[in-house]
């Protein structure tokens, strides 16, 4: 339930406020987290073994040199390989992952601690029914801003034999441009002019990124395994995303009730807080135990799933003004800009001949994380 008090505060124009807060929490925790999955429909399977880090200094602390293995209830096993970043992966073709089989994750750390998950059944998935968006307004609770944008939704329609618990992960790709093409640039205080390799270098970019949010839903309260308008991500007009073309890849996973509860606990703790009408944060219940010491608190979850995908690509929407990232062009002057910061990029307006400059993030589109080549499937 949305916190009515928060709502009421806004409603009465009470000048309520939300401010960043750092709790004075000093507690040493050094717990192990084992996260992994077997997903039919994904070629590369990943397992991550990490240690917790303090709130004040969050870090990815991989536990290296583990022996990581997934076995099924028929005795087949898949050994995982360690990657330089500390994750463990294994390529498993779909034919080797059978619907209805149960899988178990086994991890042995270099210190000899042995962790095992419960056996998780691989349930069949179902096609993504439909993905669509609506133009909606909303208030950013933290920033207090009113936003306009697109709210994406997914519909579910599955046979009753399919799982009642779903999770979606999203990946967005969008095309954007820098504020203006680079006419030339200065590298240092000598103010020597350099020219880009070609006129539109760093002007057009395509960016692909995963959306880091948990999208979960279940049909357990429904008569049929069907559900409409399950909210996915929200894209406001305050970013570059909707300027030219936006594409959303929806990966749909089925899962067990326990896995769903595990993720739901995480979601409640970090996405629906803020009022007094929320529940106490519950510790997500892991399905992984230390084989030799059942009292050890182990974090993480191992799950098995069947993935399906669908992509929705939308061109620029005509009636929707998109503001994009703020990028102002200012007229270049040696007095103001001669001392940098460098590199400094200049665009010469071909009509007036006036030279303009701006923040380099506004000129070099790759600085915002995009690439200058579109993905293969981009049209």
């Amino acid at each position, binding site marked *: *339930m*949305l916190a*009515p*008090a*928060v*709502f009421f*505060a806004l*409603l009465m124009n*009470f*000048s*309520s*406020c*939300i*401010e*960043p*807060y*750092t*709790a004075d*929490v000093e*507690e040493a*925790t050094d*717990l192990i*987290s084992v996260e992994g999955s077997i997903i039919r429909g994904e070629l590369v399977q990943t397992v*991550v073994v*990490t240690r*917790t*880090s*303090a*709130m004040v200094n969050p870090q990815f602390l991989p536990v290296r040199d583990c022996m990581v293995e997934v076995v099924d209830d028929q005795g087949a096993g898949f050994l995982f390989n360690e990657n330089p970043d500390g994750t463990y992966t294994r390529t498993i073709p779909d034919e080797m992952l059978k619907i209805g089989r149960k899988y178990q994750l086994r991890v042995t750390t270099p210190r000899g601690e042995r962790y095992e998950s419960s056996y998780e059944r691989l349930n069949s998935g179902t096609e993504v029914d439909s993905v669509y968006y609506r133009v909606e*307004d909303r*208030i950013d609770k*933290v920033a207090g801003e*009113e936003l306009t944008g697109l709210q994406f939704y997914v519909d579910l329609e599955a046979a009753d034999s399919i799982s009642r618990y779903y999770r979606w*992960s999203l990946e967005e790709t969008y095309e954007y441009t820098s504020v203006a093409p680079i006419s030339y640039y200065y590298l240092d205080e000598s103010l020597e002019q350099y020219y880009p390799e070609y006129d539109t270098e760093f002007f057009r970019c395509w960016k692909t990124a995963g959306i880091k*949010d948990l999208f979960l839903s279940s049909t357990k*309260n*429904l*008569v049929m395994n*069907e*559900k*409409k*308008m*399950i909210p996915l991500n929200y894209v406001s007009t305050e970013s570059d995303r909707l300027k030219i073309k936006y594409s959303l890849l929806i990966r749909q996973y089925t899962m067990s009730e326990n896995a769903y509860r595990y993720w739901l*606990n*995480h979601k409640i*703790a*970090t996405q629906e*807080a*803020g*009022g*007094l*009408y*929320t*529940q*106490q*944060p*519950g*510790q997500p219940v892991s399905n992984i135990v230390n084989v030799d010491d059942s009292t050890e608190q182990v*974090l*993480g979850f191992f799950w098995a799933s069947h993935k399906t995908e669908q992509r929705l690509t939308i061109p620029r929407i005509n009636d929707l003004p998109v503001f994009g990232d703020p990028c102002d062009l200012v007229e270049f002057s040696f007095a103001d800009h001669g001392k940098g910061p460098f590199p400094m990029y200049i665009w010469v307006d071909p009509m007036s001949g006036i030279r303009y400059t701006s923040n380099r993030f506004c000129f070099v589109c790759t600085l915002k994380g995009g690439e200058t080549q579109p993905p293969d499937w981009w049209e």
Partner: protein
Amino acid sequence: MALEEFIGTLQRDTNLEFYYKSAWIDSVVVRNVRKGDLLEQVLAQAFRGTGLNFFTEDNQVFIFQGDPVVASLPEYDDHRKKAFTGVDATSEGNGDQYMTTINISRENMITVGEEHANNNGRKKRVQGRILNGSTGEPLIGATIYVKQLSLGTISDVDGNFFLELAPGQYTISMDHMAMKALEYGLKVLSDGSFTIELENELIELEEITVIDKRRGNVDGMLMGYERITTRSMKEIPVVMGEKDILKVAQMLPGVQNVGEGSSGFNVRGGSPDQNMFYINNISVYNTSHLFGFFTAFSPDIISDFSLYKNNVPAKYGGRIASIFEINTREGNKNNFFAQGGISPITGHVSAEGPVIKEKVTFVASYRSTYSDWILNRINDQDLKNSNATFSDATLGLNAEINTDNRLRFFYYQSADKFSLSTRNDYSYANRGASLLWDHRFNNNLTLDVSAATSNYGFGNIDKNNVSEAYEQDYSIRHSEARADFTWLAPGNHLIEFGANSVLYQLNRGNIIPYGPESRRIPISLGEEQGVENSLYLSDEFSLLPRLNLLLGLRYSHYMYLGPADVIRYDEGLPKNQFTVIGSESYAPWEKVQSYSGFEPRVVLNYSLGNNTSVKASYNRLQQYIFLLSNTIALAPTDQWKLTDSHITPPLSDQVSAGFYHDFQDQGINISVEAYKKWISNVVEYKDGVDFISGAPVETQVLQGTQDSRGIEVMVKKNTNRLTGWVSYTWSRSMVTVDGSFDEMQINDGSPFPSNYDRPHSFNLVSNYRISRRLSFSSNIVYTSGRPVTLPIAVYYSENQQYLYYSSRNKYRIPDYFRIDLSVNLEGNLKFKKLAHSFWMLNIYNLTGRENAYSVFYEARAGQIKGYRLSIFAQPIVTLSWNFKFGNYNSE
């Protein structure tokens, strides 16, 4: 110039002292006063045709009604001022009706009984009744003191008091907060009775007073008890101009809540469902409007409320933390009177007056929001589509059939509607009525009988997802009958005994699909009923000259009744779907389960001298109903549930000790109380349970124990220009749920602080009267932050951060601190003008401190950050206007 103003000037500028009744001279004016005029001339001219007279003695000017006879002053000369003002028309006028037993002489002598009555040497029973002279209502809690014997008593709810006196002559004084004290000679000849009317204090505006009803701070047998009158809370600053008795209650020691604007509160470490609210014997199951921002009682008709945090009188039970008893005004017997007001949120009116003069009175009130204009101003589509309204209404009738019988009827309702954009529609309502009959058998035995019924229900339409949309309804009916006897037995035993019976009828409602596209599975949560019967007896008496004792015993018996389907689980195993071994069906009204128990009360009061005492007490309470609530604050969709075959009734044992002292001359009361409370079978909830899923409740709840302890220090000042109280409380409240299986534990079975465990709490409530028309009030509130479970570590998966949490409620949100200020300006104070109005300017959170309402963590683009939410982050200024038609003195 008004005479009163003229007198005021003289009193200020000269050494003259005037004695008079405000009402007499209210409409009297003085004209053309010139320098050099004799005071006698001015007064004589002013009184022409008014029936008023005066005489002077030394520098004192006495104004009185009637013939210009100089009364012979009574022999107790020290008190002649008071004595003189006591000679008023009303006591003489009403004398006729008590002709046989009373005779108030010019010398202020009350004679009780007959001269030639048989004097067998035993003590005589004297019954007195004290009424408010301007409204005719009985005065509760007036103190009566017999000087010669240093003996005192206090008037009861009907204004009655009893004394046992040997024949002879005494001086008695009668005093009541807000009323003018009287002193009389009392001549006792034989058994008899008399009635006295006290007048409102001459120079008197609303003032902050906290007074103990029936029993004083030092002398009384109550501990953990507060009584607050509407009069006293008039000038306490409030948010948004709404007078609110429960917000005032939260300023008292031992009363906490989880956050401002949340409903429900916590008394001495108990959960909100451990408090019982009665308004004129009607039980009220939801006391808040708008999720708790306002209280569901219109302040206009409330006369006072009592809060029992400890030593709940034996006649009450059924809740283990506190009983809240709200009394409404009974209506003015002589005059019609109306009042009302507007604030930014609501408009309210109330009216009262005689239906049959001196016999039957009525009181009615209505309050409603008109706040939609605020919503419409907001430039957001979501909020524009929302709306919030509430209202409450009451009607009371009070019939004084004769001196021995009184009949009262009361109706109460409150309703809320709240729609949150297109997502949720909430509505909830209380409705109830009571009939009360007070009967007096004789001077020593009275009986109060009442029957009351109330219904609380809510509805909720959840439209967040079109496929999952549902409609939910819920209702609970509480019907209660009671008979309470009060017997003043020989030897000064105050004996109370009686019985009461409660029938609970719950319809936990249905979850049904809402809208054509909803695929929700319909669920019926079922109906349930139970009956709670109790008998009680208590005796208050003097064991030794300085040692008073109160012994009470309550026996309650509860039956959970069919129809019911009761699931049986494997003995000793956690109750869940895997341990079901069968089920049994019960027919309607068939007994499914019963619980019963004795609930003793003991209080000792040892006097250490005139104004000092120590007290100790023990008290046991049991409750048979609880609230399904796993959110931090009460939510409007929380359901009440009866204890049943699986969930056993929570039980509390409390011991306390206290020290009490009065500085009578300064009007200051000091109390220090320490308590410790053990609660068993307290209801807690498993993580993430959903009470509308249809899962059996016993699979969702866990029962544990709760330990609360605390020390409450309070200093009250009731008189003079500066009134109010200051209190400090240290308290803890820890819960332990340690079952034999992991899933029957919370926090790994270790004790954890309850959501409302706030160790330090400081309150200062003060009112300073500059003049009769202008006063300032201020609150200062400090409490420790409420406990919170915070993330203490981060781990990563799939490039996202996840949080690992501390043990439950290990940390606290920042401390809470607030200052409020209000300025109250009365219109002119002519007594008999038609209308009277006053303005109130309120500043809530004067310093604009950003108090944390909550602390939460939110993931944004995979990064988790902490935030602090403050609701009232700036001073909130409101101006409200109130009016009265008729007698402005009538509170």
